[in-house]
């Protein structure tokens, strides 16, 4: 859409600049505060110009929040979720779009419904499953009386248990199991012309080959866009890691550690350290977005022919 009128131009630019300022000001404040000393940061009003203590603040924050191992944890979770999600999304969309099976519509709607139930909404049941991933099977066994039958016959009571608390699996799996990626892939797969599918059949390629040699290469931009979104959103997860890790020392993520950096109620108000920590923690997703943004934009708005 192209519109040419000075007033319209002015309004557009004004809106964009306002938006930019709204986004950048908190960021600026973080950088500024992160580079100041304790005295400087405690001044009222805050001096909005950076000072020279950034490195030492970063060191303090790094040590205080034990950010080294936590960074690795976060990275494992973010990469795990991203990979898992892409694999799951591509495969499930492949099944839904290219295969004609009886339960196709049912599967589609089951996946669709999970869009309306984000993790936050179903956090309690998800937690109880994470506490014992085999719980649903146990329930099935119990209701159908198989447990008591087995107990009668062998004297052993069957109790299935697979605990996901304090584990990478527990951190990653529930974040993987959502529908957004499936939808992105489904939309893309629907644009693949039938003739292309048929041409590959005539060329003798089976479904697996078609998936790897035609669909995946064609969906590369989509995949990178999805990877960007998933990396950022899983890096930023707070509620779920907080819930599932009691063993913070070993399985905590950096975003959880932000809490540890906030000054205690009656402690030293060293917000400069907090802000420096925040800077470190937001750096990886920033880098990912910066590196991927070309693909990201292309994958979401257009597709190469």
């Amino acid at each position, binding site marked *: 859409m192209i519109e040419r009128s000075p007033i319209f131009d002015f309004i557009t630019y004004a809106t964009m600049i306002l938006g930019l300022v709204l986004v950048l000001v908190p960021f600026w404040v973080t950088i500024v505060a992160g580079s100041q000393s304790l005295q400087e940061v405690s001044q009222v009003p805050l001096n909005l110009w950076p000072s020279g203590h950034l490195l030492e603040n970063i060191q303090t924050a790094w040590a205080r929040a034990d950010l080294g191992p936590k960074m690795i944890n976060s990275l494992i979770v973010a990469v795990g979720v991203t990979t898992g999600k892409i694999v799951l999304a591509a495969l499930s969309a492949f099944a839904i779009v290219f295969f004609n099976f009886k339960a196709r519509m049912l599967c589609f709607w089951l996946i669709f419904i999970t869009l309306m139930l984000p993790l936050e909404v179903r956090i309690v049941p998800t937690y109880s499953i994470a506490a014992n991933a085999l719980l649903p099977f146990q329930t099935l066994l119990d209701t159908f009386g198989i447990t008591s039958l087995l107990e009668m016959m062998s004297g052993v009571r069957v109790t299935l248990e697979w605990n996901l608390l304090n584990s990478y699996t527990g951190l990653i799996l529930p974040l993987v199991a959502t529908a957004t990626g499936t939808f992105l892939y489904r939309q893309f797969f629907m644009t693949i012309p039938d*003739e292309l599918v048929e*041409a*590959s*059949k*005539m060329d*003798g390629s089976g479904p697996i*080959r078609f998936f790897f040699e*035609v669909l995946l290469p064609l969906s590369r931009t989509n995949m990178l866009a999805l990877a960007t979104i998933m990396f950022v959103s899983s890096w930023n997860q707070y509620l779920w890691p907080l819930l599932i890790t009691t063993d913070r020392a070993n399985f905590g993520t950096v975003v959880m550690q932000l809490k540890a950096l906030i000054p205690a109620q009656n402690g030293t108000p060293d917000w400069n350290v907090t802000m420096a920590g925040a800077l470190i923690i937001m750096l990886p997703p920033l880098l990912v977005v910066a590196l991927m943004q070309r693909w990201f934009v292309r994958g979401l708005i257009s597709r190469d*022919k």
Partner: protein
Amino acid sequence: MTAITLSGVKKRYLKNPVVHGVDVTIESGEFVVILGPSGCGKSTLLRMIAGLEDITEGTIAIGDTVVNKLEPRERGCAMVFQNYALYPHMSVAQNIGYALKVSGMPRAEREAKVLKVAKSVGLDPYLTRKPGELSGGQRQRVAMARAMVREPKVFLFDEPFSNLDAKLRVAMRAEVRGLHRGLGVTSVFVTHDQTEAMTLADRLIIMNQGVVEQVGKPSEVYHRPASLFVADFIGSPAMNLVRGFFGEDGHFRHGKGGMIHLPTVAPSLVSQEVSIGIRPELVRRVPANTKDAIAAVVDYTEELGAARLIYADADGSRLIAVDHGTDALGTGMPIHLAIDEADLHVFSQDTGRRIELGAAQRAATNSRINA
């Protein structure tokens, strides 16, 4: 070699019948064109041969093998699609060689074959380009090369040229014809363009609403149409078809009291509801006082360059004549037309099928078919 035998082939989508039982044998090495209006089931039939569509009833055999249950790749057919269907992310060479790669042919052998085929269709300068960087005609050539490289037993074409401009289409037509002459592979070609069909085909299969109306050589189909549908569908301008019945007096009665004197044809067909047909190029303009001339009034004329078409009204029935005269003809002017009984086609109005007439008529059509 490889003949294709269709016996009692039917196709239903859910309850909806689309192809109603086709029995045709396509001889080995033959170039057969399936021609018919849009939606008549041409593509469906072709896709059943290819294995892209299940066969609801009946059997299809390629060579001696019934292929109903075989996967497309096991049938030995190669197909050229209307929209090229090239893999957008692969280069021309990769597109052409993909089937060979899938079949596990070693790389060196594959590349040699790809190069040879690409050369034969003039694609060798473009081997490293992506399909997106080619023109429509070049893309269609890639699609053809991709089909050729596998050395299939059967070529299938589904309206491959309908996205090309008129000139390129004629060129590609010649190319396909030459290709077939060179390789001699059994080919089935679907189109709704009758010029394309007439020029390419060894034999035509004419379909209408899921039924085969006629199978025959192009000249046969043109000069001895087996049904009203074929008579009307084949030929441009279309055949003159006039509905009416024969009286005892040797006259054919039509329109609003129109009469045509047809003394030899009439006796066998008295009082049947029929349509008579005659090609416009066989309708002659004659002087007013000619015996048995049909009086008509000019509606309008169409200049073709070498000749002109006269659209005339004869007592409420439309007659088209190809005329080589140069006199001025305006709307409403009276003219006189004449036809030969030997050139006449008669179709039953009940069944829509052709009614065979006497020996004179058969001789005339035969001489045209064999000309």
